[in-house]
């Protein structure tokens, strides 16, 4: 009896607190529900895969703040139900946290999402949250991460300290899903870990951020379970495709971010040094990787903006790296129409400087009426040859149409 009481009392107190809280304009429910159609231009590699996939998703958010916004509560679940792909049908809690803001510090306790970084091609430095890869292969959809985040604010910059209990494994397409890694399927149910604590290992991270004139600089350090897995090939006991077993190493991940703004120019740099990453579960090596470049924005007389993007991506591991960004140049453009429907187009080509392999990416979005948004996305590869990282995705050029209703 006695052990249960404090919990009930706390829950009641929290409930009362939430109900009595001031009603700011933002308080309450918001979010979106969407229908998505993913179509693939080419026949799949594996027989069990399909040419097109329909899915529906919902991402509601409940938010409440009180004491002039210095206390907040946020809850944001996410769910998708997808045709064919059993792994893309998934639920997650993106946010479930309590926040405090004081003059010199901020605290977030619970499940949340944190973004680090400056560049566009990839997000090297960003390591707090795991990729929700079944949502999108661009690495911009993330799984909620349990955390305790203390931010110390001073004239010498912001210092973020993180304790991250509970590791989230990366999501991968199921047997019928696309894209997969060639013929290989990821055995997501039996990941292996370097740490004996496995997914219960408590990771630590810190990041210092400061603005210096027209420059923004951040240095970060992460120590714990790598968000990116290495893969070990497991020959199947039963007949079927060979399987990839994710192996999550213990790493030290140091990041540097620099951004400068000079009129219409934005200069961006991200660099990391990773220590302890085990590519195939055994070989441990340290490596550097970086992404740097610029974005220049032209403005036409009617307010139409044309952004020109160029970034160079480099990875010390070269062709051994399980990434497309080992020696590649991104050339892209961002078109902002500044119209009533907020039409935007982002298009880019990633050019492998060492081979003929190319990948492209076009994203366009436009509001319809007051509450709907239509997004189109085209991704794919061309000129890829056996041996290229992208070769495994040679059949997976795709078109995605997403229609979302916001409430």
């Amino acid at each position: 009896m006695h052990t249960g009481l404090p919990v009930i009392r706390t829950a009641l107190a929290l409930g009362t607190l939430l109900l009595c809280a001031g009603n700011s304009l933002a308080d309450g429910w918001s979010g979106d529900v969407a229908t998505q159609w993913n179509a693939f231009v080419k026949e799949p590699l594996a027989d069990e895969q399909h040419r097109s996939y329909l899915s529906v998703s919902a991402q509601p958010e409940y938010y409440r703040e009180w004491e002039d916004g210095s206390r907040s509560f946020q809850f944001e679940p996410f769910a998708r139900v997808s045709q064919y792909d059993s792994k893309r049908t998934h639920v997650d809690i993106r946010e479930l946290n309590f926040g405090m803001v004081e003059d010199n510090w901020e605290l977030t306790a619970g499940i949340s999402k944190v973004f680090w970084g400056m560049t566009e091609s990839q997000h090297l430095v960003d390591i707090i949250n795991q990729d929700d890869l079944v949502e999108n292969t661009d690495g911009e959809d993330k799984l909620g991460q349990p955390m305790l985040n203390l931010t110390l604010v001073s004239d010498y910059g912001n210092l973020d300290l993180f304790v991250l209990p509970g590791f989230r494994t990366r999501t991968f397409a199921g047997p019928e899903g696309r894209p997969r890694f060639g013929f290989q399927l990821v055995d997501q149910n039996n990941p292996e870990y370097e740490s004996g604590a496995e997914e219960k290992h408590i990771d630590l991270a810190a990041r210092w951020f400061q603005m210096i004139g027209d420059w923004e600089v951040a240095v970060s350090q992460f120590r714990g379970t790598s968000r990116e897995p290495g893969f070990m090939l497991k020959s199947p006991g039963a007949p079927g495709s060979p399987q990839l077993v994710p192996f999550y190493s213990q790493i030290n991940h140091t990041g540097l971010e620099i951004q400068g703004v000079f009129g219409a120019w934005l200069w961006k740099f991200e660099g990391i040094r990773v220590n302890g990453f085990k590519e195939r579960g055994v070989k441990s090596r340290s490596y550097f990787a970086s992404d740097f470049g610029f974005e220049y924005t032209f403005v036409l007389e009617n307010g139409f903006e044309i952004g020109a993007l160029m970034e160079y991506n480099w990875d010390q591991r070269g062709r051994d790296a399980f990434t497309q960004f080992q020696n590649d140049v991104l050339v892209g453009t961002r078109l902002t129409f500044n119209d009533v429907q907020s039409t935007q187009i982002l298009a880019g080509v990633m050019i492998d400087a060492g081979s003929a392999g190319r990948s492209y990416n076009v994203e366009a979005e436009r509001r319809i009426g007051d509450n709907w948004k239509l997004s189109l996305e085209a991704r794919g590869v061309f000129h890829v040859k056996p041996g290229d990282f992208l070769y495994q995705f040679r059949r997976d050029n795709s078109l995605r149409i997403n229609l979302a209703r916001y409430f």
Partner: protein
Amino acid sequence: MKTFLTFTLPLLASVSMSTPLLAETPEEQGMAIAVEADSRDNGFGDFSADMLMILKNKQGEESTRQLRSKNLEVENDGDKSLTIFDKPRDVQGTALLTFTHKTGSDDQWLYLPALKRVKRIASNNKSGPFMGSEFAYEDISSQEVEKYTYKYLRDEQLDGEDVFVFERYPVDKKSGYTRQVVWMDKSEYRERKIDYYDRKNSLLKTLTFNDYQQYEGKFWKASAMNMVNHQTGKSTRLVWNNYRFNTGLKDRDFDRNSLKRAH
């Protein structure tokens, strides 16, 4: 204000002791009016307000946006402002942080809630439309005396009120305007009407201010502003609500982190 004061002390002295019209040249007269109007707006500390933006196209179809803004007065420099978007709903939670500067480009950051990413943006698009409206960024950002040079034109009556009519010329070459003609009432130095001339010096837009209310016994704010684009036939109406002054906002409410909390 201090840096500016050192340059214009003699001018200001004449302002405070007599009417601005005693200044010599039309340029000095125009400047004196702008300085006086600015000084009447000084000392607000901070304020916040809610804004409804009604966009109307040539066919009369309307779409609305709902925003909240917080503003902080900064000594010796332009104001800081945080604008939070509530509607349309797909941009709900998006927020724009602007550090206005008296000279040079403003600093701007945009918060994208879906990615939880704060993005620095090159703020060279002052002439671009704000949220697809007829208001350009430069029309709604903090108006600083130093952003223009001035020329007094004439005295006039507008809707039965005595007004000054003067021209102002944007200093920034990226401005979308060659000049603006301002009608300002003599009684309280409030803007009543502005004609905007495009880079080809033809009349582009007219902004009218309605329903001025006084706050804190000092600050006059228009409750409605209507911008008509003569070249496209489109218009945008701004309706301001819920003005609150001196709510105790601090620098911390206008930093990069504050964007992420902008719900």
